[in-house]
C-alpha cells in the first residue's frame, strides 16, 4: 500500500512553490506563480493550453529550471533565488535534484516506457539500479504493483505489445515502485484513444483514495470534479483561482474560468 500519511503531525505543505517566475527567452510562461500542496492532497490543474500547467509541474522535479522563486519539496529546497538576482536561470544542485526526483514521481503524456524492457523490467529498473534492491525482491514488488493496476498477465510483455492504456498503467506502476511521496501527472490521458481513458483514470482514482499526494494536469473535468481536493485554474502563467471542485465548477468567480469550463464542456 502507498504510505503517505505516516507523518500526520507534519502540517507544513509537502510541496511549496512561491513566486515562481519562468520564461522561455522573451516569452513568459509562469508569472509569480505560487501553490502549496499538502500531504495526501489531490490538486488538479486546469486551464487553456499554453497556460503554464505542464511547465509548472515539470519545475517540481527539475525537468524545467526556474528564473526566480522558491520551490521546496518534502523539506528539500529545489530552487531558491531572489527576484532577478542574476538573470541566469536558477540551477538546482545535483544532490537536492536527486533527492527531489526520488521523492516525486512523474507520469507523462507519452508514457515514455523503456521500449527495450518488459513491463516488469520497466518497473524494476530504478529500484534495482538506484535503490539497489535485490533483483528478486524488486521483481516481486513489480508484479504486485502491476497486479494492482490490473496488469498481472502483462508483466513479461514489451511496451509495443501493450495498448496505450496498459502502457500508461505500467508507467504509473514504475513511478510507484520508487515509493514517491507525491506523483505528478502530465496530461496522462491525452494521448489515449477515448475507450482507454477510463482504465487509467480508474487507476488514478484508486491511488487518490489510497492517500497519494497528486498534482494532476488534465482536461478530464469529470475526474477533476470527482477526485480533486482542490482545483486550480491557470491562464497565461498565472493562478486565476483555486477552490474545491464545487466552487470552481458550480460558481467560478473569474469570468476566464467560466469561459474555459464552457469551452471544455461544450467544445463546439
Amino acid at each position: 500500500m502507498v504510505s503517505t500519511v505516516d507523518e500526520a503531525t507534519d502540517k507544513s505543505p509537502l510541496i511549496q512553490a512561491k513566486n515562481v517566475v519562468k520564461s522561455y527567452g522573451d516569452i513568459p510562461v509562469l508569472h509569480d506563480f505560487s501553490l502549496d500542496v499538502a500531504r495526501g492532497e489531490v490538486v488538479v490543474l486546469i486551464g487553456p493550453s499554453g497556460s503554464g500547467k505542464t511547465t509548472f509541474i515539470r519545475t517540481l522535479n527539475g525537468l524545467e529550471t526556474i528564473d526566480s522563486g522558491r520551490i521546496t519539496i518534502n523539506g528539500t529546497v529545489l530552487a531558491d533565488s531572489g527576484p532577478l538576482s542574476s538573470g541566469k536561470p536558477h540551477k538546482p544542485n545535483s544532490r537536492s535534484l536527486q533527492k527531489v526526483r526520488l521523492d516525486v514521481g512523474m507520469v507523462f503524456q507519452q508514457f515514455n516506457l523503456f521500449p527495450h524492457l518488459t513491463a516488469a523490467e520497466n518497473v524494476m529498473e530504478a529500484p534495482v539500479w538506484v535503490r539497489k534492491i535485490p533483483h528478486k525482491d524488486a521483481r516481486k514488488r513489480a508484479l504486485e504493483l502491476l497486479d494492482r493496476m490490473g496488469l498481472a498477465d502483462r508483466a513479461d510483455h514489451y511496451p509495443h505489445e501493450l495498448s496505450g492504456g496498459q502502457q500508461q498503467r505500467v508507467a504509473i506502476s514504475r513511478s510507484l515502485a520508487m515509493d514517491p511521496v507525491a506523483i505528478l501527472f502530465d496530461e496522462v490521458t491525452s494521448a489515449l484513444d477515448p475507450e482507454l481513458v477510463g482504465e487509467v483514470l480508474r487507476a488514478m482514482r484508486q491511488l487518490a483514495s489510497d492517500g497519494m499526494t497528486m498534482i494532476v494536469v488534465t482536461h478530464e473535468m469529470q475526474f477533476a470534479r470527482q477526485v480533486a481536493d482542490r482545483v486550480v485554474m491557470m491562464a497565461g502563467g498565472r493562478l486565476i483561482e483555486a477552490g474545491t471542485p464545487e466552487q470552481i465548477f458550480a460558481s467560478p468567480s473569474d469570468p476566464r474560468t467560466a469561459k474555459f469550463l464552457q469551452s471544455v464542456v461544450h467544445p463546439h
Partner: protein
Amino acid sequence: MGEIASWLPSLLTGLGVTVELTVFSMAFGLVVGLVLATIRLEPRNKWLYIPATIYIEVIRGTPLILQLFFAYFALPAIGIRLDPFLAGILALGINYSAYLSEVFRSSIKAVPHGQWEAASSLGMPWVLVMWRVILPQAGRIALPATGNYFIALFKDSALASTISVTELLFSGQILAAATFNYFGIYAVVAVFYLAVSYPSSLGLRALERRLELSRRKARPKKVTA
C-alpha cells in the same frame, strides 16, 4: 593446385594479422568514438567540445594513408617509436573513432527526449540513464552503420601494408614478388577477403534482425499447476 597450397601458410598468417588489426582497431574506435560522441552531446562544455570537434575534423579531413605514415614514419621524429602493427592499430583506430563518433552521436540524439526525462525523473543519475536506458536504444540505431564501418575497416586494414605490417595483402605481395604469379595470388587474396567480409555482413544483418525491438515478444508463459 599444389602451387596454391604452397601459398596458403603465409596467406593464412597474413589473414590472421588482418583480423587482429581489424579487431583491435575497431575496439579502439568504438571506445574512443563513444567517448567523443558523449563529449559532443554537450556543446556548452567548451573545454571538451572544441578539442573533440577539432580531432574529428582533422581526422576526417586527411587521408587514412597519411595518418598511417604519420604514426609510423613521423612520430619517431618526436621520440615515439611504434612497431608497424601498433602504429597500424593506432592510425586505423583513431581514423575510425572519428567516423564512429558521428554515428554514435546521431544515434544517441535519435533516442526520444522523453526517455531521458522518464529515467531521470525516476532518480537515475546521468551515467545510469546513459548506460541502462539510452545506449541500449542508441546501440540498436547505430548497429547498421557501425557494421558497415566494421567491414570497411577490415578492408582498409590493407593500407597497413604500406607501413610494412605483414597482413594479408602484404603477404600476397611478398609471394607475388617471389613467384611473379600476380593473377593467381591476388585472386586468392581477394577470395580470402571475401571469405571474411561476406559472412560478416550476413552475420551483422542477422544480428540486426535479432535485436529489432518489434520482434521481441513476451516469453511464453510457464504452465503453472
